[in-house]
C-alpha cells in the first residue's frame, strides 16, 4: 500500500517535472512567451470572423461571431495540439525510453498537461470576451464546464496515448493523424452552428465526439443553457476511446525499448 502511494507520488512528480520542461522549452527564448498560447486561436478566429461575417455570413443565433467561434476554437486547439504532441512524445524521447525505466505514460500525459496550460491561458481571453460582450455567466455553465472538460480529456487521453504507442511501431501515425485532424476540423461545429447540419444526418454527425463536446461548450458558455443530450453520447464514445487507447498502450508498452 505504502509503495503504491509512493509510486503514485513518483509518477505525479515526474509528470509535473516533464510538463514544466515542455512548457519551459516551448516559451524560453521567445519574446511573446506564453502569449503564443493566445495568438494561435486569436489569429484563427480573426480570419473566420472576416470570412463568416462579411463574405458568407452564418447564423450564430444572435451571439457575436467572434465569441461564437472563439468558444469552439480553443477546445479544438486543445485537442489538435495535444493529440499531435502526445503522438510523438515517445518517439522523440526514444533515447530515454530505451535506457531508463520510468512509467512510459508520463511522457504523453505531460504533453497533454502542457497543452492544457495553453488552453487555460486562452480561456482567460474567452472570459474577457464574455465580459466585453456582456454575456451573462450562467450557473449551469459553471456546473457543466468541468464535466465537459473531463469528457474531452478522456477523449484526448485515449486518442493521444494510443497514437503515441502506435507511432513507436509505425511512424505513419504522425502524418496520418495530422491529416485526420484537418478533416475532423470540418466535421465539427466550429465554423458553423449545429443548425446547419441536416436533421437526418445528425446521428452520424454525433458519432464524432467532438461535435457533442464543442456544442456543449457553446451551450454553457455562449448560450447560457444546459448542454443537449449530445453531451452524453460524446461522453460514451470518449469513454470507449479512452479505454481502448489505454488498453492498447498497456498491452504494447513492454516492447517500446526493443524498437528503437
Amino acid at each position, binding site marked *: 500500500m505504502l509503495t503504491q502511494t509512493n509510486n503514485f507520488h*513518483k509518477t505525479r*512528480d515526474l509528470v509535473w*517535472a516533464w510538463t514544466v*520542461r515542455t512548457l519551459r*522549452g516551448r516559451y*524560453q527564448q521567445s519574446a511573446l512567451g506564453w502569449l503564443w498560447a493566445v495568438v494561435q486561436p486569436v489569429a484563427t478566429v480573426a480570419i473566420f470572423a472576416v470570412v463568416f461575417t462579411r463574405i458568407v455570413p452564418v447564423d450564430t443565433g444572435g451571439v457575436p461571431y467572434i465569441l461564437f467561434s472563439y468558444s469552439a476554437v480553443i477546445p479544438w486547439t486543445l485537442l489538435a495540439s495535444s493529440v499531435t504532441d502526445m503522438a510523438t512524445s515517445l518517439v522523440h524521447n526514444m*533515447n*530515454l525510453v530505451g535506457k531508463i*525505466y520510468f512509467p512510459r505514460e508520463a511522457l504523453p500525459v505531460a504533453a497533454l498537461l502542457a497543452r492544457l496550460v495553453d488552453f487555460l491561458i486562452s480561456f482567460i481571453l474567452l472570459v474577457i470576451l464574455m465580459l466585453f460582450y456582456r454575456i451573462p455567466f450562467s450557473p449551469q455553465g459553471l456546473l457543466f464546464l468541468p464535466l465537459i472538460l473531463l469528457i474531452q480529456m478522456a477523449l484526448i487521453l485515449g486518442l493521444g496515448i494510443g497514437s503515441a504507442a502506435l507511432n513507436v511501431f509505425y511512424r505513419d501515425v504522425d502524418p496520418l493523424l495530422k491529416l485526420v485532424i484537418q478533416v475532423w476540423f470540418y466535421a465539427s461545429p466550429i465554423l458553423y452552428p449545429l443548425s446547419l447540419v441536416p436533421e437526418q444526418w445528425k446521428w452520424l454527425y454525433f458519432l464524432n465526439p467532438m461535435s457533442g463536446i464543442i456544442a456543449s461548450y457553446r451551450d454553457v458558455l455562449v448560450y447560457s443553457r444546459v448542454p443537449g443530450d449530445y453531451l452524453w453520447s460524446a461522453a460514451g464514445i470518449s469513454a470507449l476511446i479512452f479505454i481502448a487507447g489505454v488498453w492498447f498502450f498497456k498491452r504494447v508498452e*513492454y516492447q517500446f525499448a526493443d524498437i528503437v
Partner: protein
Amino acid sequence: MTPVIQFTNVSKRYNLGLTRTSLPSILSQWVKPLLGKQGNATDKKIYWALQDVSFAMEKGQSLALVGPNGAGKSTILKLLAKITNPTTGKVEVNGQLSALIELGAGFHPDLTGRENIYLNGTILGLTYKDIHKKYDEIVAFSEIEEFIDTPVKRYSSGMAVRLGFAVASCIEPQILLVDEVLAVGDASFRQKCIERIKSLLRNGTSLIFVSHDMGLVRALCERALYIEHGRLQASGTSAEIIDMYNRVLEKKRVEKMNRHDGGMDEVNAGIEVTRVDILDVEGNPVHEARTNQPLVIRVKYTAYKDFGKSNAIILIHRSDGLLCCNIRTHLDHFPMSIEKGEGEYFLKIDPSQLFGSMYYVESWIMNADDSDGIAFGASEWFEVRNSIQGHEANMAVFEPNRAWGQNRISQNERAVARPTA
C-alpha cells in the same frame, strides 16, 4: 539467503531490420498464408542478444560484466532495469534498483541546473520530496554551486556529466547498475565517482558494473562474468576474467594479422613444406601452450626428388612483430638429409619460456650449405600462457625458470657502509 539478482536460463531475441513496417511487406505477410505459401524464415532477421544465461548474485557483492562490444552486456542491464523483458527464462530482482546508464537523462538545455536536478531526479524515480532532501548534497558533489541557476546549455559537457552523476548517485539503491558512464569527466572527478561507488558498496549496495576499463573492473569488483556472443562464457574472480578478456582481445587482434606464409612461386625446387604444427611432448596438437612446459615444433614436407644434405631454420614470431628465436640446423650441427618422399623434422624447446602472447612458427628448408631457401611453411597462430596470471601480453620477452632468494645483511655492516654525518 535469497540472491538479490537471479537470472535463470534467460534468452533475449531481437528482430532486426524494419521489414515488418513497410506497407508492401505487411501486405505480403498477410497475403502469403492466403496463397498457401510458407513465409520464408529468413525474411525476419532474428538476433539473439542473449542465450541461456544463468547467474546469481548475493547482497553486497560487486560483479563486473566483461566482454567485447555487442556481447550482450547492455542487454543484461536492460533486463535488470526492467526496460525490456526476456524472450524466455526468468529475471528476478529483489530490492530497489537504480541504474547509472544514461547520465543527465532528460536534461533540457534551456532549463537551469537546479530545474534539471528535479527533472532528472523524477525520471530516475525520485519524488520532489526526496530530491529536496538531497538537493544540497547533489549540488556539493557536482561542484557547480555558482552555475546552478544557469541554463545547462551554457555548461561544459564535463559540468553536465558531473551534475548527472551527482543526481543519479544520490539515490542510495540496494542494487546499482553502472554502464560505462565513468569514461567521461576529468580524472579527479572520475576518482570522486569511484570513491562514491565504493562508499555505496561499503553500505551494502550490490553493484553490477559494465566497463571496458579493466583497471576500473579490478578496482571495483570482486567477481566478473565473461560474456561473448550472447552467452555466458566464464565466471570467476575479476583477476581471472580480466586475464581471459585480455587474451581474447589479443587473439582477435592477431588473427586478423597476416602471417608470413606465402607460397614460394619462384622457388620451385621440387620440395614443399606441407604442415607446420605445434605439439606437446606426447605429439598432440597444442591450442594453448604454457610458458613453463615444453613445446615440439613439427614440420612435414614432401620432396619430389633426392636432395641429400640439407638444412632447416625455425623462426618463432610474436604477434607484435618481434622475432623471438632463429634456430638453425646448420649452426647447431644437426645433420639433416632429405630424400624423395614425405618426411618430417622436429624441434623440441623445453621449456618454451615464451612470454604469454600469440605466436606463429615459420620454417625454411635450406640447401646443403645453408645459403638458399628451397621450401617454406608457417604454422597457425598459437597462444602461450604465462605460468602465473596477472601479466599483460607482450610486456616482456620471456619468462624464465626461476628462483627468488634473499640474504639479510647485518645491521653492523650497514652502519659501517653508511657514513655518519
